[in-house]
Every structure is written in structure tokens, then in C-alpha cells.
């Protein structure tokens, strides 16, 4: 990434892996040499033209990049404000933005001579994207997934298995993403010689938050170029959903130093931010702490025990958030707001009916936030949503919520 001056918001992290107070390397000693090796290998890959060319080639021919920027005409008319655009990351191979990151990291794992891949997954989108690149590059793959998520995202479990991955259900805790990540870390600490931990979000110990962000930054860069081509100017607002926050940081990063572009992150408001342990909005409803290798906003009790949280969306059901988001929250560059399960469900249905696009429940949170902002904007203004994933995996769960399965 090009540094753009001392006051740039795009310079992070520092050498200690910090974005201000956040980030860092809070891992057991066993893992420390591994993440130092990883950082070294990543730095070398970053400046290797061959590595960059391979990513670009695969992004074009395997993933289908650039993903389209789509003018959502009926959504625009319905909301009666700014012109609404969708960045169609759900059209990527495997159906979400997750492949941008797994492709980059699998090439890195190959470079490092690793022979086994592990990953955690919530909604299963990252698990599928990891299983996919493991199939393509012929590497064994173990995906840790909370038992609750295995149930509510079963179509993705089947996809992972068909792709040759082993899916290990995790029953600890509430059986969601946090517990899957604990179990992946326990595996990694055991199988240090062979195993590459392919983290799916822009969180964890340094250098993961930076590395995942960089692999995902293609989203915002393309939006910038596509909006210039379409309207000859930058968008006025950009919206993305935030769980760990990889699609959001990838969307926002290109715009951080463009103050005219308002940035909105939609957190999982669950049953409502006022319901204790009933949401997964770590920035709106949590406070800074240390978990999974980094300092960041966390949902926790007064004794520093991590709460499970809740969201209808398995991909957002995580009590933390990537450290760069915590920094952007404190500096107020990005406005983070909670979206309830119900608001997300409403947005899900509206998008499906108006645009013929079934969004992932995660992305529907972003859309719900857009639906609040767009009507307050002028008709000559533009707003872009990162439509991070497609909703095929959710149709069964949503059908159940809506009582359509009878």
C-alpha cells in the first residue's frame, strides 16, 4: 500500500502491528516464531512481481474480477434519495468476497512450503473459499466451525465437504465463530511445522489484520475506478457490514483519505443493542480488550470474560472486530451503527423482491444501514453498498424465520 503522508489514515499498522491502541501480537510463545515467519514471507511476497502477477491472473480468470458495480434502480426509486449502487462481490467465484483473501493467502502458504491448511468459519463463506483454493492447489484442509453454525449454514457445510475439506464442528461455548477460532488456534499451536492458519477476517495477531485488508482492498480500489468511470466523481457514501470486518476494511481502505466520502459500517444489532448479550455489536456495545491475538473492541463482562453475543447472521456473530475498525471507530472516520436481526431480514426481503438479488444475511445488515442513510441524501448524490455475499446459504434459515417452510 502506498503511504500517503504523515496524516494519512492509510499508514497503519506500525511495526508492532498497532493501529493506535489496537492490534498487536497477543499470542502464546509457541506461535510467536510462526507469525514472525509469516510476516517475513508476506513482506517478500508483497514486493515480488511474480506473486502479484499470479494473484492478478487468478483474480481475473478464476474469481471473475473486477466484480460489477451495479446501479440498483428500483432500490433507488424505493428509497427516494441518493443513487444506490451495489458492488457485486457476491458474484465472485464461491459467492462472496472471501475468495480475494483465501487466494492471496494460499499462494503465500505455498511459498512458505506449508502442507496443511486450517481455517475457522462462521457463515461458512470463508470455509468454502478456503476449501475451494485448497482443492485447486491440492492441499489438505480442515475447517473449524461452531456446531450452531454447522446447523444454520448447512448448505455451506456440504459445499466444504464436497470440495474435500474436513469440517470439524466445535461444541465449546455457544458453538459459533469465537469458539471455532479458539479451536483453530489450538490446532495451529499443535501442528506448527506443517500447518498454515488461513484466517478469514481482518483480525488476529499482526500481520493478519494488515494482510487480509490488503488482499481485500481490491474491492474499494475497483469501486473508486468504477464510480469515476460511471459518474466522473467519488461516491458520497460507502456502506459495508462488519463482523470481523474484512469486506468492510477492504471497501473502506481506498477511501480513508477522501474526507468527502462518508463511510458507514453496519454491526450486528441482534435483538437490540439494549439487550444484554443479545447482539454482536462490539464497537457500539463493547469496550477494548485482548482476544485472539489482538487488542480491539470486545463484548465482555465486568470481569473481562468474553460474551458470546448474538446475531441472526452467523458471519457477524462474533464478539470482536478487526483492530483497524476499532481505530477508525475511535477516530470517527467511519460511523459504525447497529442493525437488528429484524432490520436485516426486512432488507433481505426488499432486496430480493426489488432487485432480484438474494443477499447474504451479513450483507443485508449493510443494506439496512444504507436504507437509513440513502433517503437523507440528495438525488444527485451516490451511495455504494458492498454486497459482500449471496444469500443462497441463508434461504432455509430465512424461510424458517418467515414461516415459509410449511
Amino acid at each position, binding site marked *: 500500500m502506498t503511504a500517503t503522508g504523515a496524516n494519512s489514515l492509510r499508514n497503519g499498522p506500525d511495526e508492532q502491528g498497532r493501529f493506535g491502541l489496537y492490534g498487536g501480537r*497477543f499470542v*502464546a*510463545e509457541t506461535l*510467536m516464531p510462526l507469525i514472525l515467519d509469516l510476516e517475513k514471507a508476506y513482506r517478500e511476497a508483497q514486493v515480488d512481481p511474480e506473486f502479484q502477477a499470479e494473484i492478478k491472473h487468478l483474480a481475473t480468470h478464476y474469481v471473475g474480477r473486477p466484480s460489477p458495480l451495479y446501479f440498483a434502480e428500483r432500490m433507488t426509486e424505493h428509497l427516494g434519495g441518493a443513487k444506490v449502487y451495489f458492488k457485486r462481490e457476491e458474484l465472485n467465484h464461491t459467492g462472496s468476497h472471501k475468495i480475494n483473501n483465501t487466494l492471496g493467502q494460499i499462494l503465500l502458504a505455498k511459498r512458505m512450503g506449508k502442507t496443511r491448511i486450517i481455517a475457522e468459519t462462521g457463515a461458512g463463506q470463508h470455509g468454502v473459499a478456503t476449501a475451494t483454493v485448497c482443492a485447486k492447489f491440492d492441499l489438505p484442509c480442515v475447517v473449524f466451525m461452531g456446531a450452531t453454525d454447522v446447523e444454520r449454514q448447512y448448505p455451506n457445510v456440504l459445499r466444504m465437504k464436497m470440495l474435500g475439506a474436513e469440517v470439524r464442528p466445535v461444541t465449546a*461455548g455457544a458453538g459459533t465463530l469465537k469458539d471455532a477460532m479458539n479451536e483453530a488456534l489450538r490446532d495451529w*499451536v499443535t501442528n*506448527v511445522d506443517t500447518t498454515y492458519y488461513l484466517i478469514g477476517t481482518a483480525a488476529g495477531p499482526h500481520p493478519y489484520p494488515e494482510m487480509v485488508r490488503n488482499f481485500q482492498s481490491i474491492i474499494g480500489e475497483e469501486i473508486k475506478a468504477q464510480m469515476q468511470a460511471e459518474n466522473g466523481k467519488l461516491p458520497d457514501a460507502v456502506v459495508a457490514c462488519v463482523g470481523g470486518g474484512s469486506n468492510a476494511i477492504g471497501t473502506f481502505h481506498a477511501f480513508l483519505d477522501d474526507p468527502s466520502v462518508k463511510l458507514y459500517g453496519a454491526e450486528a444489532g441482534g435483538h437490540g443493542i439494549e439487550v444484554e448479550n443479545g447482539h454482536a455489536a462490539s464497537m457500539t456495545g463493547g469496550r477494548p480488550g485482548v482476544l485472539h491475538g489482538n487488542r480491539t473492541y470486545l463484548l465482555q463482562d465486568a*470481569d*473481562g470474560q468474553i460474551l458470546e453475543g448474538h446475531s441472526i447472521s452467523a458471519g457477524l456473530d462474533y464478539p470482536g472486530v478487526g483492530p483497524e475498525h476499532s481505530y477508525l471507530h475511535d477516530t470517527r472516520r467511519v460511523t459504525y451503527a447497529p442493525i437488528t436481526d429484524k432490520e436485516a431480514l426486512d432488507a433481505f426481503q426488499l432486496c430480493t423482491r426489488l432487485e432480484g438479488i438474494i443477499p447474504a444475511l451479513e450483507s443485508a445488515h449493510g443494506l439496512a444501514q444504507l436504507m437509513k442513510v440513502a433517503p437523507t441524501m440528495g438525488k444527485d448524490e451516490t451511495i455504494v453498498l458492498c454486497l459482500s455475499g449471496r444469500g443462497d446459504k441463508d434461504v432455509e434459515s430465512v424461510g424458517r424465520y418467515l414461516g415459509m417452510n410449511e
Partner: protein
Amino acid sequence: MTTRIPARFAKCAAEGRPALVTFTMAGDPDLATGQAILEALPAAGADIIELGMAFSDPMADGPGVQAAGQRALAAGQTLKKTLAMVEAFRKKDNDTPIVLMGYYNPIYIFGVDAFLEAAKAAGVDGLIVVDLPPEEDDELCIPALAAGINFIRLTTPTTDDKRLPAVLRNTSGFVYYVSMTGITGATIKSHAAVGEAVKRIKGHTDLPIAVGFGIKTADDAATIGRDSDGVVVGTAICNAVLGSLDNGKATAGTVAAVTTLVAGLSSGVRRAKAAA
């Protein structure tokens, strides 16, 4: 800085045997029973006590220690109560070193300065905080040393000679060598490799070296104890607590289940002397 730790290692060395370091989870299975276990440990043969600070997400622990932490949390254990346990223990025993072991977040939320002050006042001698490598020394390690509390670092099979000096730099009290790459409660694959590793670390430090992870029986303690200054047993003790419970509740046999195991381990470290 003087804590109770160097004196205790010196005492064991004078007896020509390694120290027995026992790990129990504070507040497992409940506060009162946990306190009774803690107070029974020295007489049963524990030379140094590691007291676990329960955490919701113990990333380096296997099922045995995880379950112990969950039992403690379910019974309402907090960091404040753990410190109070040490304070009560000190009224009866002013010699046995106590090392608090756990993860950083509960300490961070308690407040580092407030925690160190309370820990020192309660009679804590050392800290082992799994997720604070030397790269994060400014967080707790340096302040702990300033407060007169030992910061005991884990070294692992992945800590090579190049990295070892950085890991040992601010370590005090003793060095905790993790016998394997893995989580607590797994099985040691090669005793010989552990001995080699202890020798390697000894080339870098004069501190005592205790070996932990995977030591379950008196025989393990005797074998590993031959090559080290101390052996740490944790999961086996947590499992002994578990085995004594009835429907998750403490029974009349819970404290005895722990002391019987510890007495056996204590005989193991004494055999290490005879074998050496």
C-alpha cells in the same frame, strides 16, 4: 526483587530433587472447595503453586483445563475472588510461592496497575500470562517487575536459540519450558528431546527451569524431573477434581482426590533424585 520463588527452588535443590509445581484452577469446582484444595496443597507435597485465573477463551489449554475454568466461572469465580484466595492462603502459609496463571484480558480489564498492587498485597509471587510474548512486554511484564512480581515466561520447542535471549531477557523466578508444541494435557512424544531442550536453555540462563505440559503421573514426574529443576502438573489435577464431582458439585472426596494425586507426584519428584 525477592519473592518466595528463588528460596523454594534453592530448598529443593538442596534436597537434590526437582520442585513439584502444581496447577489448580482458582474457584474450581466452587470457591470454598477451591480454597480448601489450595490450602491442602503444600502438605500434600506441592513446592510451588500455580493458581489458574479462569478465562472464557483459554486458547492454549486442552479440554481438562478448559473444563476446570468453565466450572469455576459457572460457580461465579472472578479475578477479585482469586486474589482474595491468595490473601486468605497467606494467613496460613507465608513460604509457598504462588504464581497466578492465565490470560491477559481479565487483568487488562481489572487495570494493570490496580491488579499488580492487589496481587502484591495479597502475596502473589509471580505471573504467567500465556498470551503476552516478549513483543508485548510493555503491557504487563515490565510493570510487574517494577512492582516486585516475577514474570515467568514460557519457552517452547519453537523458541530457537536466536529467539531465546529475547524471551529470557525479562524473565525472572523461573523459566517454564513447554514440553511440546500443543495444548495443555496432550502427551509428550519424546522425553529425550525434553532433556535436550532443557540443556539448551540452560546454556542461556541461570534461572531454574520447570517443565510442563503432558506430565500426568508420578513416573512422568520422576523421568522429566531428572533433567529439570521442576515439573509442572496441571491437567491431571483438573481431571482429578472432575473425577470427584457428583453432578458437577464437590463431594467429600474432592480435596482428597487432589491431595492423593499430589502426594503421588511428590514421591515421583523424590524418585527423580534417587535415579539421577
